[in-house]
């Protein structure tokens, strides 16, 4: 169980091709940190660099205060769970779990005890003498996790461990991982996923990666409520946050923005007098938009398409000026709204303010 510290870590293939740059990250013991980001953002590469499966091209990686840049994977005190489970197909579940300890020439009793303990935690006892091909997908995933528990590592690394499972199993296994983390409060875990539900539900902190670097680090609710930039704002939450361009017309404790589309928004973020006239984007999440009869709504438009999801209804408004259509999420079922002209507004504390892509929240 240990801390992990990345300082200016970079990854490049060849000379100029940087895929990751200036990664600075402090992970404390007991945290479950989730790396998310669009595909190709380098999140798996970063995880593999921590594991030692990819060379680190620049910067420092410390585990427990020791620089481990040149230490081979096995000696870093990490364990990794792969997306494809990576079970050894010719070994039984027991042999799979015991493999690392056998390599380390641990005594037989110790190996057996560790395997039994892990099997018990993961309810794998009945399957210990089966081959991986005789297991279901969920069971295989549990074996892969068990294999890492057996090694009692300082840091657990998970590389999209749930993406090969079907939807129902994914939810069940996600909850199991959450329970597992709860049962081992001291262990440090790093988890890579492209699924933001996994990220939001599991993480103690989320690291959003984009554009060769870290876009924001924070707790799940932090990222949801206080995104530091437009990228994070749009990446977290589904459907994505609406961004509407406008100009600041009033500054002070609250800020008023006149939108290019004709609407007007009030936002609970304080601004300086010098900010007046700045071109900004306001951001409002679809679930924060409410219907309004006001004379000066935030947005007014005709409902183009309705998606009824049961507990909520998504309203897609006709797009204006070639921009992404505004989306609103209303609770309940509203088939009658299609084709209607509706005004929308939002509470000032739910309105985000971005200038040149960055949040203006102090």
């Amino acid at each position, binding site marked *: 169980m240990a801390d992990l510290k990345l300082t200016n870590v970079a990854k490049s293939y060849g000379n100029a091709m940087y895929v990751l740059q200036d990664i600075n990250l402090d992970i404390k013991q007991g945290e479950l940190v989730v790396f998310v980001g669009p595909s190709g953002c380098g999140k798996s590469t970063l995880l593999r660099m921590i594991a030692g499966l990819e060379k680190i091209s620049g910067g420092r990686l410390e585990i427990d205060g020791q620089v481990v*840049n*040149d*230490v*081979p994977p096995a*000696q870093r005190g990490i364990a990794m769970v792969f997306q494809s489970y990576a079970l050894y197909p010719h070994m039984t579940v027991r042999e799979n779990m015991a493999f690392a300890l056998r390599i380390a020439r641990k005594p037989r009793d110790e190996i057996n005890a560790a395997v039994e303990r892990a099997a018990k935690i993961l309810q794998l006892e009945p399957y210990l003498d089966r081959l991986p091909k005789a297991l279901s997908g969920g069971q295989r995933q549990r074996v892969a996790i068990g294999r890492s528990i057996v090694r009692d590592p300082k840091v657990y690394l998970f590389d999209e461990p749930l993406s090969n499972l079907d939807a129902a199993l994914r939810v069940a296994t996600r909850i199991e991982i959450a329970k597992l983390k709860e049962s081992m409060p001291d262990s440090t875990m790093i988890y890579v996923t492209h699924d933001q539900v996994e990220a939001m539900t599991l993480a103690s902190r989320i690291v959003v990666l984009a554009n060769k670097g870290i876009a924001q680090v924070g707790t799940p609710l932090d990222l949801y409520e206080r995104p530091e930039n437009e990228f994070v704002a749009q990446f977290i939450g589904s459907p994505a946050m609406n961004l509407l361009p406008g100009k600041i017309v009033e500054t002070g404790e609250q800020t008023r923005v006149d939108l290019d589309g004709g609407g007007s928004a009030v936002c609970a973020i304080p601004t300086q007098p010098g900010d007046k006239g700045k071109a900004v984007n306001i951001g409002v999440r679809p679930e924060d938009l409410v219907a309004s009869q006001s004379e000066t709504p935030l947005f007014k438009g005709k409902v183009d398409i309705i998606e009824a999801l049961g507990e909520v209804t998504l309203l897609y408004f006709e797009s204006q000026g070639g921009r992404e259509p505004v989306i609103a999420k209303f609770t309940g079922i509203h088939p009658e709204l299609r084709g209607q002209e509706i005004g929308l507004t939002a509470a000032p504390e739910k309105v985000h303010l971005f200038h040149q892509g960055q949040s203006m929240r102090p």
Partner: protein
Amino acid sequence: MNLDLLNSPAVLGVVTIVLGVSGCVGYFYFSNLILDKVIFPPRGRNAGRNINYANMVRPWLFLLPALLALGLYLAYPVFKTLHFSLTERVPGGGNVWVGAANYQQMLKEPKFWEAMRNNMLWLIVVPALATAFGLLVAQLTDRIRWGNIAKSLIFMPMAISFVGASVIWKLVYDTRPAEQDQIGMLNALYIFFGGSDPQTWLTIPFWNNFFLMAVLVWIQTGFAMVILSAALRGIPEETVEAAIVDGASPLTIFFKIKVPQIRATILVVWTTITITVLKVFDIVFAMTNGQWETQVLANYMYDKLFRANDWGVGSAAAMVIMLLVAPILVWNVRNARNEMR
């Protein structure tokens, strides 16, 4: 202990297996051990650097025995043969440089040109027929229930040695005097269908080449069939179904939909058989030994090397075979490199 027993080849064989296997395993095990424990130990101040060094050296440890064997048994002989082909052995040992004299002498021999002509015939006929038959069988057996048994039986000659196949076919071509019952199938059929006198098939110049080629076609068809059958299975079923819906006849589907999609595989099969043909030796050696105008390059070369003891001309003939293989070699290497990328 009995000394004879010790000298018997069987015991020698067992000893060689044990020595060879334990030698290989021992080499790999101990060289790794020495690398990790003695030369670059992963401890101390330079632990990280040492591990990197060890990992740079290790691939070469794994490769070394194979590289030595490949170099000595395949790469070196190519150059040595080239050297031999340009020199003449002098009595008492040693070679003298003679330039292209061996080649000139070879080009003047009618037997060489006969071998060249026959090899060209083989090159055209055998790959074409074997591939065609293989494709036919692969396609036909694809749809029938006992197809796998049929394929297995047609594939079977692959396991038979060229020498064994030569004996098998010599019986087919056997000739008895006219007044006796024919025991060779071909003559029996020939007489049955109204042929007058039994023929000695293998001594009819020019045509006897085709009787020899039949043996190789018989053997290689199975190879072509296996590869092409897998390729046919790999064709997306939807393209065929789309063609059926479009109203294409089975023949059209085969020639216009299926064959174009496996063109690359057909080429591979063709070239592989071509290489086999260029090296063909045993069949001619066993059935006619190059008499009655059936000489081929490989047998011509063998004649020169081991019967006439003329290493110069023999090596020159070997170089001609190498030259004929070279385009395929280059093509294969280029494909392999493209695939690696």
